């Protein structure tokens, strides 16, 4: 099936970090691009392969699970190869190492650039330039290359020098202001940074489009995607209500901006088990009322329309909260769906791994054990192509795993030169023990 891969023959020189950048190139790798991650044994990229290059069991246990869920709680000697937060975004990619800060390392990177169709990066502003790889230098090696920059706040303009991760990008993009409980001050964005997901996908869209133009015209180009400007597109209703009508959207908890009433998340009789319910139409509301046995509080004529229900939303939510509390979540889920009501369980991560629908949908694929993690079911990409094998073809790229391939096969380095570069520290499958683990 590989002959039908959409990006067959496209090579990416990948300098991306964290989530937005690394997922952008992951989607392109899924589509068949040969994505070569450029890594440096002497430079620790924060939030790119693990929380830290030196992390022990105790530190891992003290950190939040999403970032430090290493196998069996033990990061082992190479935490960069088994972090739950990052390794899955390295699927279908290759990894090679080089100290690009040294002239001979830079020369190697430039050779790779000459063989690449795309260069992608979201390093701190100015990092590539400091290496001597500004756009002109890159294009001097490969004039028709597509360059993707994913800066947080833009490459130019007053905000360009602002630092930030997902939390800060979401704050400025308008996500944090509309994400939270109705009755409280803005909730710190310590849990979900919606913009990373969004920006990564848009980065891939941009490159896919630019590659089409290049295929048809031979012309490469530079793409700048400020993650904050991309993320702002995730809340168009709030932005346009402001621009058109001067209205400010604030937190509405789990209520709907689409006019669905009721719309929320309600407790069921299990421990921390919740069900989300949306009445997307008056019909769905009536179906819900019938399903509940038409209790008196729900049958008033004034509740027949969404507008009428909107005036009584507090009361409706209180009553529903009481009603759902005595029901078993999963029974309610299936029964409400059968009754024609939009409803679903709030599935925690464990429940997602056990969900019967997902078990059948092919979204999980077990990968064999490596030295760094046991045999484990990983995510496959959500898109299923009937002819192109855009799925999980190769496991997450371990650090330096493809040095042999890149140096010998791709760059044509001799055995002698390979040995020399290895001795000089360019070629490695671990980080230098003295690498500085700064955030």
């Amino acid at each position: 099936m590989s002959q039908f891969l959409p990006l067959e023959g496209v090579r990416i020189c990948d300098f991306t970090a964290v989530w937005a950048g690394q997922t952008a190139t992951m989607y392109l790798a899924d589509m068949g691009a040969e994505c070569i991650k450029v890594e440096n044994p002497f430079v620790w990229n924060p939030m790119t392969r693990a929380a830290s290059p030196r992390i022990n069991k105790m530190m891992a246990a003290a950190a939040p699970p999403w970032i430090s869920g290493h196998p069996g709680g033990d990061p082992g000697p190479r935490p960069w190869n088994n972090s739950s937060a990052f390794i899955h975004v390295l699927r279908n990619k290759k990894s090679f190492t080089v100290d690009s800060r040294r002239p001979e390392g830079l020369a190697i990177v430039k050779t790779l650039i000459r063989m690449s169709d795309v260069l992608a990066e979201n390093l701190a502003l100015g990092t590539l330039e400091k290496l001597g790889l500004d756009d002109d230098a890159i294009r001097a090696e490969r004039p028709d290359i597509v360059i993707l920059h994913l800066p947080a706040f833009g490459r130019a303009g007053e905000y360009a020098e602002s630092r930030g991760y997902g939390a800060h990008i979401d704050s400025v993009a308008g996500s944090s202001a509309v994400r939270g409980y109705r009755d409280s001050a803005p909730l710190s964005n310590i849990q979900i940074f919606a913009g990373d997901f969004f920006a990564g996908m848009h980065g891939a869209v941009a490159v896919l489009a630019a590659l089409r133009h290049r295929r048809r015209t031979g012309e490469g180009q530079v793409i700048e995607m400020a993650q904050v400007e991309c993320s702002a597109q995730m809340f168009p209703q709030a932005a346009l209500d402001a621009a058109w009508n001067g209205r400010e959207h604030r937190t509405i908890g789990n209520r709907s901006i689409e006019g669905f009433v009721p719309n929320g998340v309600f407790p069921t009789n299990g421990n921390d088990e919740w069900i989300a319910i949306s009445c997307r139409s008056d019909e769905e509301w009536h179906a819900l009322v019938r399903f509940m046995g038409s209790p008196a509080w729900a049958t008033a004529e004034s509740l027949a329309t969404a507008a009428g229900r909107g005036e009584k939303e507090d009361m409706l939510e209180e009553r529903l909260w009481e009603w759902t509390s005595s029901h078993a979540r999963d029974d309610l889920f299936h029964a409400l769906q059968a009754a024609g009501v939009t409803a679903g369980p709030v599935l925690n991560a464990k429940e997602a791994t056990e969900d019967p629908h997902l078990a059948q949908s092919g979204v999980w694929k077990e990968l064999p054990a490596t030295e760094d993690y046991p045999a484990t079911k990983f995510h496959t990409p959500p898109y299923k192509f009937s002819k192109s094998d855009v799925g999980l073809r190769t496991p997450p790229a371990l650090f330096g795993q493809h040095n042999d391939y890149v140096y010998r096969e791709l760059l044509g380095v001799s055995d002698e030169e390979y040995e020399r570069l290895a001795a000089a520290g360019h070629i490695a499958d671990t980080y230098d023990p003295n690498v500085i683990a700064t955030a």
Partner: protein
Amino acid sequence: MPAPDPAPSGALDGATVLDLTSHIAGPYATKLLADLGARVIKVERPGGDPARQLGPFLGDIPGPDRSATYQFLNTNKESIVADLKRPGGREVLRRLAAKADLVVTTAQPKVAQKLGLDYETLSGLTKAPVLSITNFGQSGPYRDYRLSDTVLFAMGGEMWSHGLADREPLKLGGTAALLQCGAMGAIAALGAIHAWEVHGTGQQVDLALFDIQINNVDRRSSAILSYRFSGRLQTRPENASSGIVGGVYPVADGYVEVTATPGNYWNRFVEMVDDDALRDPKWSNPLIALDPSAKEEADAIVYPWMLTRTRQEVWAEARRARAMAAPIYSGIDIADDPVFRERGLWTEVEHAVLGTFPMLSRPYIFEKTPWRIRSAAPMLGEHTDHILAAEGYDAEAIRALREEGAIA
């Protein structure tokens, strides 16, 4: 009907997409294609895309063309109304599908079968790829289940650990989960277009909203892999602050979000606040975070510093110190921000009836093939006659189709 302006060309110039999507996720996928130059022919059911009824509305006056949701999601598209339950409507679909480089649908499997939008039927009309975006995919126990943005994020996304421990799990703002799915739709669509143009491969591309959110990198995929690896579950935190300094702080005109975790970020934060008391080495002791009086001591310095500055002042200080702090912006701030305006986050669209109004502009800047608004979101059936004429229907045939209700 003015023909779309041909220049300058976009990256997807020359690609034709037959768009049978409605509501939010599907239309966002095809909007991303249209804004990069693809010709997107939106086939609307009689009465139109239900998103036309979604607020907010221009001037707070409801109307099928005044919806912000609809206007945002359908820029640069053409609209033809066809009733696919009628033979005349089916014939229109057949002719349009034959010329498309990609067909995109969002009908649920059962409805798709009824309307002839299932892959088996569509692949008889065109060799081009067909992307079907559904709630739960083409098979499995939930296949015919209903979804909303909230239920989608509840089941697929990492809602369970989002919010506070003693309260209910929280969704994202707005319709973020659906729009995220739309972006994934555009990736799948472009992958399909590449395979079509490079290899001549027509195929079925199946994309389920549930699967997309299960793949949501923030932080569903991590939480799931963490559970598989370590058995640990990410839970909702007791409170939304973290460490000695970190979280949301009130400032003179709103709020800022601050990260000052030990190490570099703490040092830069101290540099930003520039208070010698915070330079005491005791703050670098990792155990200090466990001491409530230390947090109080830090708060006594940090809160007054924050409250005597505006968001922009704090942000400027953060830039100076390279500290991780940023203002919490509302839609109003995004609409008014002079830097965003200068960079081009906003544009204006011209609408034949509504006049000129502001619109969010590009998510990305292309050097050679600009993102561009060629036309506002189409009025219902605005391009019906034009599209049909190009397909060889004469005025009489178009009138007959209209009379039988096959088109509008």
